[in-house]
C-alpha cells in the first residue's frame, strides 16, 4: 500500500514539475539512470531561476557541485544535471541544477549549492565577469514543502545579488527559496 501511495505521489509530483532541464521520460528510458539501483527515496528537483532583472541582457552562472544532507549531516544521493552555464535573464525558465533522493523517515534536508568560479554578464552600460567565488548557497528544506510540487526553486534576485566590483560583478546571493 505504501509503495502504491509513493508511486501515486511520485506521479503527481511529476505532473507538477517546472520547466526546463531534461525530460524525465527520456531519462527514465535512457541508458544511464541518474541514481544507482540500490539508492532509495523520493526524488526531488533542485532548480535555479533569475528574478527581478534590472536590465541585464545576459547573466550566466555555472554550478560546480550540489550536496544534500540530513540535518544530522548524512549525505543523501544527488545527481548534478547542470552541464552548461545557466542564463538567468530567462525569466520564465527555472534551470534544473540536479536531483536528489530523500529516504523515508527524513523530514528535513540541508541543501548546498557551490558555483563554479566565474560567470559573465552583459548590460547596456557594460560587459564582464560575474565573480562567483563566494561561499556556497545554503538552505534547509522541509520534506513536506518539497513534496508539494516535487522541487525546490531558488529565485535569485539579480538586482540585489550582483554587486559592482570594479568592472566585474560579485554574486552575493539575495534569494527566495520556493517550493
Amino acid at each position, binding site marked *: *500500500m*505504501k509503495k502504491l*501511495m509513493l508511486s501515486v*505521489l511520485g506521479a503527481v509530483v511529476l505532473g507538477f514539475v517546472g520547466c526546463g532541464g531534461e525530460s524525465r521520460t527520456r531519462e527514465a528510458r535512457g541508458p*544511464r539512470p541518474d541514481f544507482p539501483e540500490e539508492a532509495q527515496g523520493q526524488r526531488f528537483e533542485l532548480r535555479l531561476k533569475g528574478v527581478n532583472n534590472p536590465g541585464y*541582457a*545576459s547573466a*550566466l552562472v*555555472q*554550478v*560546480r*557541485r550540489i550536496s544534500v544532507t540530513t540535518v544530522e549531516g548524512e549525505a543523501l544521493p544527488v*545527481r*548534478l*544535471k*547542470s*552541464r*552548461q*552555464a545557466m542564463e538567468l535573464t530567462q525569466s520564465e525558465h527555472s534551470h534544473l541544477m540536479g536531483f536528489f533522493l530523500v529516504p523515508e523517515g527524513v523530514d528535513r534536508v540541508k541543501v*548546498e549549492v557551490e558555483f*563554479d*568560479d*566565474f*560567470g*559573465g*554578464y*552583459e548590460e547596456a552600460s557594460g*560587459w*564582464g*565577469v*560575474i*565573480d562567483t*567565488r*563566494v*561561499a*556556497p*548557497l*545554503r*538552505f*534547509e528544506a522541509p520534506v*513536506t*514543502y518539497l*513534496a*508539494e510540487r516535487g522541487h525546490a526553486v531558488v529565485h535569485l534576485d539579480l538586482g*540585489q*545579488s550582483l*554587486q*559592482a*566590483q*570594479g568592472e*566585474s560583478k*560579485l554574486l*552575493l*546571493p*539575495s*534569494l*527566495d*527559496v*520556493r*517550493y
Partner: protein
Amino acid sequence: MQRGWKAVAVATVLGVAGAAGAHEFTCEKRVQVKGEGQGKPGEAPRVTKFPATLRFHYKLKNVHPKGQSVANLVEDPLLAHHGLGSPFPTPVALGVGESRNATFELKLDTPEACLALAASDGREDESFDSALRVKWDLGETQCAARVTCCEPFVDCELTCPPDDPHCVETPKPVAPGASRHAGFFKVHEQALQQCLAPGRIDLGVARVESLEQALGLLWASPGLDRNGGVRSEEDTRRFELAREALVSTCNERLFGTSAKRSRALGEALRTLRGSSGDEGLKRLATELRRHNEAGLREPLPGGFDAGRATPAHAASIAADPTEPGRP
C-alpha cells in the same frame, strides 16, 4: 486504508498552507568595519586594523502588497557561533510596508581571528560571506554580505610587538607582472584567440587547438562531461587543473613569463600528461590559480587589446574538448 486517509490529510494541510503562505519579505544585510571608513566604492569592506569591530546591519521588510507577512525563524547561522541569536525575535509579523532594523557587532582581535572567520563560510579564501535567513511558511528569503580580511604584513596595518623576538615581519612581495584569471579569458574571446595564435596547447586531458575548445574548458561543468555523465572526483580535479594550466599558459604567452609561474605550470603539465593518480592535482590547481590571480591589479601591456567581453557568445560556442570517460 488508514494511511490513505493520512496522505489525503497531509495533502489538505499542504493545500491550506500553500494558500495561506502568502508571505513576502525582502531583506538587506551589509557590513561596516568600524573606524575603516566606507572603503573603495564597489568593493567589499576590508579589515586592515586590529582589534577590529565588524558591525552587521540587517533590514527586514514586508513587501506583500495587501497583507502582513510572518517570519517563523530569522537567523544568521554563521554568526550564531559568535553570539548572535535571532536578529529579530520570532515569530515576527510585519504589516503592509512595515520594516525592522537590527545590528550585531563582532570584535576581531587579530588577523588570524579574521581569517578563521573567513574560513568558516565553507570557502578557502580571505573573505567572510554570510547570509541572513528568513524562514516563512513554504519558503525562505536570504540576503548576503561580504567582508574581506587583510593579509598580515602585506596590507594589514600590523607591526611586530616590540616584546616578541620571534615575530618576523614578512617583506612586501615584489609586484608581479600582469596576469588575468580564468574569468577574464572566459569572457574575452579576442584575448583567448590571441593566446592560441602561437599554436595548440597540450594539456594531457585535451589538446586545445581552437577558440571553441579553449572556451569549452573554461565554460564546461567541472562535474559533468559533455554527454552529461558525472566526472569522478579525480577527473574533476584533473579538469580543473587543466583549466588553470590553460589560463597560466595564456598569461605566459600574452603578458610575459614569470619564473615561479613557469615552474608551477611545468609541473602541472607533466602531471596532466602523465598517468599518475590524483596526487597533487588540487595543490597544483590552487598554486596555479594563485599565480593567475597575482597580477590582476597590474595593467595589461601597452598595445594589447583584449576586445570587449562577450560572455553570452563565448558560452554559446564553447565545446568541451575533453573526452567522456577521460577527464
